[in-house]
C-alpha cells in the first residue's frame, strides 16, 4: 500500500500539469471568488463571510476534481497493463485501492492546507485561533472527497468516462451543496436537498469554524458525518473495484 502511494506521489509531483491544476488553479479560483463575494460588502462581517465562502466552497469543488483525476489513475493502470502486473505480484489486490486512496488523501490534505494558508497569508483569514478544528475538517473533507474520486473510478470502465461523469456529478453536487452560490441565499427546499452532498457538510463545517466560531464539539458532528460519508463511499468503491476493475483482467 505504501509503495503504491510512494510511486503515485512521485508520478504526481513529476507531472507539472497535475501540480498546477491541483494547487495553482484552486488558488486562482479562491482569489477570484473572494473578490467576487466580498467586493461589494458593506461591513467587515460581509467581507469576512465572502472570504469564508469563497475559500470553503471553492476548496471543496476543486478538491473533488483533483480526487476524481487521482481516482482515474486506477483505470490508467488497467489500460497500461500495470494493474495486471500488480495483481501478479505478492501485493494483496485491495492494497492497490488503498494505496490510491492514501495518495488521494495525502494530496487532498496538501491542497486544502495550502489553500487555507493562502487565505490566511493573502486575505487575512483567521486560521490560527481555530487550528485544531480546521485540521479536523481538512482531514475529514479530504477523506470524503478521496472516497468520491475512488468511487468514480470503480464504477466506470475508462478514463474518458471518469472525466465525463466527474464533471457532471461535481458540478451538480457543487451547485446543490453551496460551493457556487451560498446556501443561505437559496430557497429552503434547496437547503434541505443540499445535505446529500459532501460540499454541504464541508462548507457548513468551515462556516461553523470561521463564521459562527463554534467550539470543537460542534465541529465534530460535521466531521463525523463526513467520515461516515467517506466510509460508506469507500465500502461501495471496494465492492465495485472487485466487481468491475479486477474482473476485467
Amino acid at each position, binding site marked *: 500500500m505504501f509503495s503504491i502511494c510512494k510511486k503515485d506521489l512521485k508520478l504526481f509531483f513529476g507531472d507539472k500539469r497535475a501540480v498546477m491544476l491541483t494547487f495553482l488553479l484552486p488558488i486562482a479560483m479562491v482569489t477570484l471568488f473572494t473578490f467576487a463575494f466580498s467586493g461589494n460588502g458593506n461591513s467587515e462581517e460581509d467581507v469576512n463571510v465572502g472570504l469564508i465562502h469563497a475559500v470553503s466552497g471553492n476548496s471543496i469543488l476543486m478538491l473533488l476534481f483533483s480526487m476524481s483525476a487521482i481516482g482515474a489513475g486506477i483505470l490508467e493502470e488497467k489500460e*497500461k497493463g*500495470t494493474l495486471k502486473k*500488480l495483481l501478479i505480484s*505478492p501485493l494483496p489486490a485491495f492494497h492497490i485501492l488503498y494505496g490510491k486512496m492514501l495518495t488521494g488523501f495525502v494530496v487532498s490534505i496538501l491542497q486544502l492546507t495550502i489553500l487555507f494558508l493562502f487565505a490566511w497569508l493573502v486575505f487575512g483569514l483567521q486560521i490560527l485561533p481555530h487550528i485544531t478544528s480546521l485540521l479536523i475538517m481538512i482531514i475529514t473533507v479530504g477523506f470524503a472527497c478521496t472516497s468520491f474520486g475512488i468511487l468514480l473510478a470503480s464504477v466506470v470502465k475508462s478514463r474518458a468516462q471518469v472525466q465525463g461523469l466527474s464533471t457532471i456529478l461535481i458540478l451538480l453536487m457543487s451547485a446543490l451543496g453551496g460551493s457556487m452560490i451560498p446556501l443561505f441565499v437559496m430557497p429552503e427546499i434547496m437547503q434541505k436537498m443540499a445535505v446529500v452532498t459532501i460540499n454541504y457538510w464541508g462548507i457548513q463545517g468551515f462556516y461553523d469554524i470561521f463564521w459562527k466560531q463554534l467550539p470543537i464539539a460542534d465541529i465534530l458532528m460535521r466531521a463525523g458525518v463526513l467520515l461516515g460519508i467517506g466510509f460508506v463511499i469507500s465500502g461501495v468503491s471496494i465492492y465495485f473495484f472487485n466487481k468491475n476493475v479486477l474482473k476485467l483482467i
Partner: protein
Amino acid sequence: MLSIKSLHKSFGTLQALKGINLQIKEGELYGLLGPNGAGKTTFINILSTLIKPDNGEVLLDGLNPVTQREECKKIIGVVPQEIALYDDLSALDNLMFWGGLYNIKPIFLKEKINSTLELLGLYNRKNEKIKTFSGGMKRRINIATALLHLPKILFLDEPTVGIDPQSRNLIYEVIKKLNKEGMTIIYTTHYLKEAENLCERISILDRGAIIIEGTLDELRKSTSAEDTITIRLSEPPEQDIINSLRACYNFPISITNSIIIFTVPNASKELASIISKMSETGLDIIQIEINKSNLESIFLKLTGMELRD
C-alpha cells in the same frame, strides 16, 4: 516443476482451454506456440494466478496457484505481452518499485537491479525516464521487472513483439543465460523461428487444445514432416536419366526444366546418395538447396493452415 492435468477454462460460451495436459521439467526452456486466440495468454494467466481454471489441476513446483496463490506468486516471474511500466519514472525507479513489491531489502534490491540492468545492457540509462526509451529498451526493462526476485519459473508472453533485431537478439541471449543458470522458462510466441531456435521442447496450441508436443525432431517424426533437396542443373536431364532416378528412390521427385526437387524424410541422410547418383549419371549440378522441415511446415501439416498473425 510444472504439472498440468486436464486444464479447462471457458469464458461464457467460448472454450478457451479444452483439457490441457503438460509436464515441464525443472530447468527446461519450454515453448508454447500458437496463433493469436489459441489460448496461450489464458494459459499463462492461470499459471500466474490471475484467473482460476474451471477444471483440472495445476502444480507449480508442487504449489497449487488456486489454493496457494501467495506462495506461488513468490516463485514465479511474469513478463506480460504489454509493456507494463510507468513512462514518467526512470528505469531505476520502475525497478525499485516492482522489486519492492517482493519485500526485497533495499540494499539487495539495488545490487540486483544493477546486475540485471548490466545483463540487459541498460545500466548506463538507468536514470533516464522510460518514455525516452525505444520499444526494444522498454521490452528489456519489462523483462528486468520480472527477474529481480529471482523467480524459479519465468513466464514470457511474447516478449519480442515489435522490436528491433538488436534488442531481440539480446533478449534471446539473456533468456538462454537465465535458462543455463537453472531457471525454468515457459516462452509463448507465435514466431515459429523463435520457438525453433530457443526452446528444447515445444507445444503447439490451437483453439484451446495442445495439438502436438515434443522436441522439434519428435514433432518432425510424429508428423512425418519432410525436407526438400532442390538441385539446379546446367541443362534439363534426358528422359532415361529421369527414369533411372525415379527407379532408384521411393520418395517423390519433381522435375521442372533443369530443376529437380527431391522430397525426403531426412535431407542430411539422403543428400550424399543423391549427389553421388547424379554424378554417376553425368549430370552437371550448378546449385543445391536444402530446406529442412520446420515448425511452419509442421503447423501447416497439423492444422491445414498457416500460423495466423
